[in-house]
């Protein structure tokens, strides 16, 4: 491995619950223009390879990659789709730059969630058509089962999960692009409708529309273009992993695919003791309990320590390990394939010192984690450093 990869540009739209005034193409275009401006590049001249992350069912269009190149300035250039999380796209771009064949890579992901009229119907189509789909399970039901098991094992309660929701949605108040910011009270949780016990409506990240674009570049390009005075953010490690697809054969107590993804990223970033070396983490919180579960699987906290951590506020903004200072998916909104990129965007801002009220004091190493949501077992992790 000869190449070091840096993040040289980021751009995002506002995340909103509906966006009837713009098409998905306009969302992508806005994020791309901002990212190119941030990186100081012209996509037609400077970008060697483009990656977009999308799933046909979410787009309502088969072979969706057809409709991507024009908005990104990628027509007749090297462009392809990863049917995965935005962080999988980051991984693909990272690998391409590491070959030495490409200097500048662009990664795009977006959500036009408000166009999806039957999100649960789409989600059910992701289950095994022979064994699982006939049972008529929806994803929230599966999340409820899993949450129950997690709370029982860890000795935590719904209140601990509610603390995660309160923290993340309050953090989002200071994130200018977040779409689900709120200051919640105890009463809000008491009256939140139960969806699949113990999962209540407030425990679930709600969808939003938006787009994120990231520009990555090789160290050689960066040196030529900017020198080292601009204090770039480096992508020092990426890892990703899949567990078992079927509900019947996975280990419900453990999410070991998350640990494997993290270990791969730690290995590349040279991190031996993540709990000590990570300054802040942006962790998947599609459901409130997931943030807690993922912190354990990422080896940032021992399962037995979770309770003490939450009660002492260690993951709050002023805590030892701030988690989701962006507001997470609970506070920013759930962006389908772009959810991981939204965290990635925020982590880069924190490392650049551009987060205003939520700015953490002098962070040097960040962990960004994404999970594709139920019913999948696919996770990706990126380590960013300055």
């Amino acid at each position: 491995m000869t190449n070091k990869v840096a993040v040289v540009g980021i751009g995002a739209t506002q995340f909103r619950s509906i966006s009837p005034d713009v098409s998905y193409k306009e969302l992508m275009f806005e994020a791309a223009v901002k990212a190119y401006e941030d990186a100081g590049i012209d996509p037609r001249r400077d970008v060697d390879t483009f990656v977009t992350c999308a799933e046909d069912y979410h787009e309502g269009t088969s072979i969706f990659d057809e409709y991507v190149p024009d908005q990104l300035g990628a027509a007749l250039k090297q462009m392809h789709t990863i049917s995965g999380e935005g962080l999988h796209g980051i991984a693909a771009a990272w690998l391409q730059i590491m070959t030495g064949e490409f200097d500048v890579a662009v990664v795009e992901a977006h959500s036009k969630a408000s166009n999806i009229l039957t999100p649960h119907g789409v989600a059910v189509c992701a289950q095994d058509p022979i064994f699982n789909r006939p049972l008529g399970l929806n994803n929230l039901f599966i999340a409820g089962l899993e949450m129950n098991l997690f709370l029982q094992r860890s000795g935590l309660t719904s209140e601990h999960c509610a603390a995660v929701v309160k923290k993340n949605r309050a953090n989002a108040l200071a994130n200018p692009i977040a779409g689900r910011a709120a200051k919640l009270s105890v009463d809000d949780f008491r009256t939140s409708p139960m969806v699949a016990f113990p999962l209540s409506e407030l425990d679930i990240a709600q969808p939003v529309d938006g787009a994120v674009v990231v520009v990555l570049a090789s160290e050689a390009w960066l040196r030529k273009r900017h020198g080292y005075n601009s204090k770039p953010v480096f992508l020092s490690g990426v890892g990703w992993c899949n567990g078992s697809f079927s509900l019947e054969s996975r280990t419900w107590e453990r999410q070991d695919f998350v640990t494997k993804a993290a270990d791969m990223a730690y290995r590349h970033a040279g991190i031996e003791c993540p709990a000590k070396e990570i300054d802040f983490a942006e962790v998947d919180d599609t459901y409130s309990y997931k943030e807690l579960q993922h912190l354990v699987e990422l080896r940032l906290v021992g399962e037995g320590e979770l309770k003490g951590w939450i009660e002492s506020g260690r993951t709050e903004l002023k805590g030892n390990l701030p988690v989701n200072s962006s507001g997470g998916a609970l506070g920013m909104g759930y962006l389908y394939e772009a959810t991981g990129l939204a965290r990635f965007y925020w982590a880069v801002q924190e490392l650049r010192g551009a987060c205003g009220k939520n700015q953490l004091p002098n962070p040097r190493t960040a962990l960004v984690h994404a999970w594709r949501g139920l019913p999948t077992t696919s996770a990706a992790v990126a380590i960013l450093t300055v």
Partner: protein
Amino acid sequence: MGNRVAIVGAGMTKFVRRAQETGQELAFYATKMALDSCGMKLDQIDGVVLGSAPDTFDGVHMKGEYLSPGAGAWGKPYMRCYVGGGTGVFAVAHGWYHVASGVFDTCLVVCEEKMSSYQPHAQGAFLTIFDHTTERPLKPNLLWIFALEMNRYMTTYGLRKEDIALVAVKNKNNALDHPAAQLGGKVTLDDILSSEVLAWPVQRLDVSPVSDGAVAVILANETVARRVTDKPVWIEGVGWSLDTAYWTNRDLCYPRYVEEAARMAYKMAGVTDPRHQIHIAEPYDPFDYKELHHMEGLLLCGRGEAPQLTVDGVTQRDGELPVCPSGGLLGVGNPIAAAGLMKVAELFWQLRGEAGKRQVARKVKRGVAQAWGDLMQVGTVVVVGI
């Protein structure tokens, strides 16, 4: 170009109209055959990549995750790439950058398509590939738009149907010798010209069939490749290019995106004179005119010259430049992504002298495989050599 990457094993299922096996099982069989062909075990595979075309074929959302158990992806870094019909050849480029980056020593590339799940006919899935506002209300299908393209090609160069139908005769007869072929048969020019007209000038026998099938290849870096085989086939160059979605504004007589992809791959491979430095070609031939179109895009001949090469027998198995000695999509079958990877597998077997009755007469050292898709807008190219 990055670290050297070799193909060390390949396997494919029989291509059939309606497989009894699930998509997962098809992927499993191809994977098992590829591993067995080089005496490797799944434990020795570092990462897995999957290629599969529209999710609608299998009727499964997040089809990548669905196929993961069959593709041997449990507990491994796993990613699905996607460029519509171009996916089969692109998947090798995707696997290539996994290994060329130095991040992975080995990578399993699996492509699967089960088109028979789509009822009543896979053509229905293609209604949803068009722009929802400007094109979909016209209810176009693929035969329609390819008839436009074929017409344009014939008109530009003053070609007759006979000049083009010879490709179908050659490929379907070549497929007679392929043990995994769906449609091999003794076909005459008269058979093609008297077959049912679907959308003039496209007739039934100008078209490849609807198929189910899977193909897998194993990629390895130089150290592993030398250990597991004494006949590695090196990936010398990869290329891809995606054109604008506005296909209606393009001159349909020449696939410029294929030329762009080919130029990228040739540059990487050090090929300066493709007509003489490429010894065998597997261009994408879902329709007979496409083989000709793509030979021109691949710079294997001048524009409008490919039909004459076919008439002169240059592209026959015993010709100077064997083209689709496998039987191509027209003869072996067209399970979309798997068909593209079949072409790379064919070059692997031909270059190693393991193609049995299909073995070309000429001694071949370097070959090119190519696939195409989306809205007539993507070209993907792989150059391999020994």
